[in-house]
């Protein structure tokens, strides 16, 4: 396709029509892959060609405008080029404006970061268009900060919007920030709250990164907001979006330094573990008055620089530990006790049994006095040790506390975590893995059906600790499931009161994070109760519980519910399932089908699919076994 240059006043509306029609019919790729590079070259320095290009796109009829504009935005190798090609189209044409500022950013989320960069960069390059940039930013922030959007939109979309916000921020200049500083601040506060409320760690982190970025932009001097989160590729990518050098660098130095400084400041605070500094006490006594020569001088001292004070030792008796943890002001001793507690408990089961409930209470209320590395883990492991040494009284205490007043989220979660982790010990060796193997062989070798087992295993593994790891390759020797006697004690109290709201704790209301954890814990409990006597009763109770919570808005909770179903299908013997729970199973199956199709969360859909496969396998298994 070539154009006739020259002073001819030709009308290119025909060409625009052709272009539009071709694009709308889906031939963007072919057409534009030739057109765009050509135009890029031609418009590089030639103003006439630039204007021709603008005329070209402006004349595209509205009904085809979207396809054309989108095609250009996607194909242009950079915001500057896009600017040359489109000119002020977005300002002049309402449809183009709609596409660029609304549709691409808010209604779609499948575009790459490069597209976003192009688009927003384009908006920033001309003073007429900058007003649109600010408008876009405000709208993005509104969406970002809306709690219903955070709750219901897919994580991918949220990430997309976050990226767009970050890119916008990177293009803003100082005076513009000044003018909308207050608004930015308000939206940031609202948005950060919704994000932190979410149960999904990814959403929380997105919120944190964006909030940090906004804060650093609006508070150029003075303290900026800083969060602590896991730094990984995604986080780094997001933060790199903030560091922009706009193509025509007429930006004054202040925002530039700002941005560079921000790149450093945006790194999360690394918590330094408490390093004990030993003072090497000089052993040399102070008599320098060795004026007298005596035979002692033959004795040459050895190097004694390693001779330092001994670290404080932890108490060796459990009762002493309790004393130190509840009363002691000596922080060194407290730290040493916390570190040594788990092994002490395991070495002295008889002594622990005497004070088990008290110890569990102390641990539950234990707060971090000094900064110990891995405090949460240490506390959990100690709690687990206490629990496995003396299961029944401690579990009674813990489950009663779970539903009581005035506990913080962390504490309730601790209760649950402690229960989860304590199972492997009582789990002992069961025939569980053996029972599952025949199942796999019956299936046709499709990937997804092997996946479910692996994924369930992995999930369980990540939450539990296996003690007999060395033997897991070999068929585990079967023995009675030691969990049998205590399974019910773990399970039923937890499930009992979930719908009873207390003044400070409402599982069905705000505390959906704890509800999510509760649901996951119940799933693990169910899984480990295989071959116990109570398993069928547990299965039935669990199914009822799941049915009550089916349509919960929080995706973390829904994921937990789906894993409950998986555990149940794996643990309850197939005969029992089909005999006693047929109707409920059918109902569950239809619900699962719904989830697979309609749930906004990708993980939920996948889990539901696995559950359906499990159910299929179950049916097949029973068909092949002659009844």
């Amino acid at each position: 396709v070539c154009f006739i240059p020259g002073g001819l006043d030709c009308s290119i509306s025909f060409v625009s029509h052709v272009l539009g029609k071709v694009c709308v019919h889906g031939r963007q790729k072919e057409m534009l892959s030739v057109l765009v590079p050509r135009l890029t070259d031609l418009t590089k320095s030639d103003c006439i060609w630039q204007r021709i290009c603008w005329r070209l796109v402006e004349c595209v009829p509205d009904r085809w405008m979207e396809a054309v504009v989108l095609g250009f935005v996607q194909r242009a190798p950079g915001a500057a080029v896009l600017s040359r090609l489109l000119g002020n189209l977005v300002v002049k044409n309402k449809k183009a404006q709609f596409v660029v500022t609304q549709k691409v950013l808010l209604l779609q989320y499948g575009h790459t970061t490069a597209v976003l960069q192009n688009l927003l960069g384009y908006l920033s390059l001309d003073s007429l268009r900058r007003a649109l940039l600010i408008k876009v930013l405000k709208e993005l922030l509104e969406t970002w900060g809306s709690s219903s959007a955070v709750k219901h939109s897919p994580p991918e979309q949220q990430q997309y919007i976050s990226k767009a916000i970050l890119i916008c921020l990177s293009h803003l200049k100082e005076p513009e920030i000044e003018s909308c500083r207050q608004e930015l601040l308000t939206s940031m506060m609202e948005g950060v709250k919704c994000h932190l409320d979410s149960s999904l760690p990814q959403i929380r982190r997105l919120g944190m990164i964006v909030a940090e970025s906004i804060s650093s932009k609006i508070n150029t001097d003075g303290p900026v907001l800083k969060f602590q989160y896991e730094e990984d590729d995604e986080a780094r990518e997001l933060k790199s979006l903030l560091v922009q050098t706009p193509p025509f660098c007429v930006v004054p130095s202040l925002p530039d330094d700002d941005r560079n400084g921000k790149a450093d400041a945006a790194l999360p605070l690394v918590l330094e573990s408490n390093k004990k500094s030993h003072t090497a006490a000089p052993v040399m006594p102070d008599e320098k008055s060795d004026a007298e020569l005596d035979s002692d001088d033959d004795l040459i001292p050895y190097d004694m620089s390693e001779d330092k004070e001994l670290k404080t030792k932890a108490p060796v008796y459990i009762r002493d530990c309790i004393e130190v943890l509840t009363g002691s002001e000596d922080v060194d001793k407290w730290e040493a006790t916390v570190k040594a507690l788990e092994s002490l408990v395991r070495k002295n089961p008889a002594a622990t049994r005497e004070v088990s409930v008290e110890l569990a209470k102390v641990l539950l209320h234990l707060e971090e006095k000094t900064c110990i590395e891995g405090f949460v883990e240490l506390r959990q492991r100690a709690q687990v040790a206490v629990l496995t040494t003396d299961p029944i009284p401690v579990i009674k205490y813990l489950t009663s506390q779970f539903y009581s007043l005035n506990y913080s989220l962390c504490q309730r979660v601790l209760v649950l975590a402690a229960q989860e982790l304590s199972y492997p010990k009582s789990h002992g060796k069961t025939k569980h893995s053996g029972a599952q193997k025949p199942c796999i062989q019956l299936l046709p070798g499709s990937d997804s059906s092997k996946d479910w087992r692996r994924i369930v295993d992995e999930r369980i593994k990540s939450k539990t600790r296996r003690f007999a790891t060395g033997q897991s390759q070999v068929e585990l020797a079967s023995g009675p499931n030691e969990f049998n006697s205590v399974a019910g004690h773990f399970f039923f109290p937890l499930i009992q009161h979930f719908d009873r709201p207390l003044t400070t704790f409402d599982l069905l209301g705000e505390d959906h994070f704890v509800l999510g954890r509760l649901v996951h814990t119940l799933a693990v409990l169910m899984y480990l109760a295989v071959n116990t006597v109570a398993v069928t009763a547990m299965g039935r109770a669990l199914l009822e519980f799941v049915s009550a919570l089916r349509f919960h808005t929080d995706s973390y909770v829904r994921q937990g519910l789906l894993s409950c179903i998986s555990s149940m299908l794996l643990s309850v013997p197939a005969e029992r399932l089909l005999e006693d729970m047929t109707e409920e199973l059918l109902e569950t199956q239809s619900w699962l089908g719904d989830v697979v199709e309609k749930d906004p969360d990708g993980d939920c859909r996948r889990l539901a699919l696995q559950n359906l496969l499990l159910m299929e396998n179950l049916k097949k298994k029973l068909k092949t076994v002659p009844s």
Partner: protein
Amino acid sequence: MALPPPDPQFVLRGTSAAVHALHFSCGSQEPDVPILFSGSENGFIHVWNLKTHRVDTALDGHGRKSVYCVETMDGKDRLLSQGRDQRICLWDLAEGRTALTDSVFTENVGFCRCSLLKVAQGRWLMAMAAKALEEVQVLELPSKTSVCTLKPEVGAKLGMPMCLKLWQLNCGSRPLLLAGYEDGSVVLWNLSMGRALSQLVCHQEPVMSLDFDSEKAKGISGSSEKVLSIWSLNEQQNLQVYKTHELVNAGISGITIRPDKKILATAGWDHRIRIFGWKKMKPLAVLDYHTATVHCVSFSDHKNPSERLLAAGSKDHRISIWSIYTQT
């Protein structure tokens, strides 16, 4: 540049219990092997062959109660051991025998190690904590007759005797006893008259161990605190503090001065053995090998100075043997 401290020459393993007492017997000539006796918490006395580094014999005479003192009487054929079964046993180990020849029922449930002193050929004096709380009884061995009972004055409130040392200036002079008590004082007793000659408060905490150099009339004591106390005896037989030495970590279980009076070793609760020059308390080395409290230290009685050894027994069931400062 100071050298790093030496490693143990060898380590004896196999007691399977904490080691509370050590005693060398290396003075005899070839073909007799050098021997180390060790007393453990499980009631056994092990006879270690220092050439093969293995146990030659194990003596079981204290009903599996901890043995916390072992001493030889005239070489390695006669052994005295003291255990928590309230007994002091005498053994005949000559010609490969392991015969329990005699025992003394002390009726004392404490931890105070007895002290032996040879006063004449075939006659020893033994000081031990007696049945009554603050008393020390001195017996003559092997006749087991009581020589005297040393009672502190009423109201002295010394507490239990914690460590004892019988000594005499030279053969023939009257024997004296130094006793460290629970209240931190060291008392010098005259045995013939049965009364205290001098008392000195050396520590705030119980005196865990003491040793005395009769030639220089200087002694040293350690307790559960961070301080070693060095005291001397003047002509009037009065104890006075000579100096104190501050330690890095608190707690001393045992002190012993080498027979040549050049160095001394302390066994610490901080798992370390410390060597000091005796003359000026100059710190010489810190031997850090054990992983638990060191309960006892002992120097060997080798005739050849270059073969001299130091042994340390610890709660970690090991006995470390060191060769240190053997050139002087």
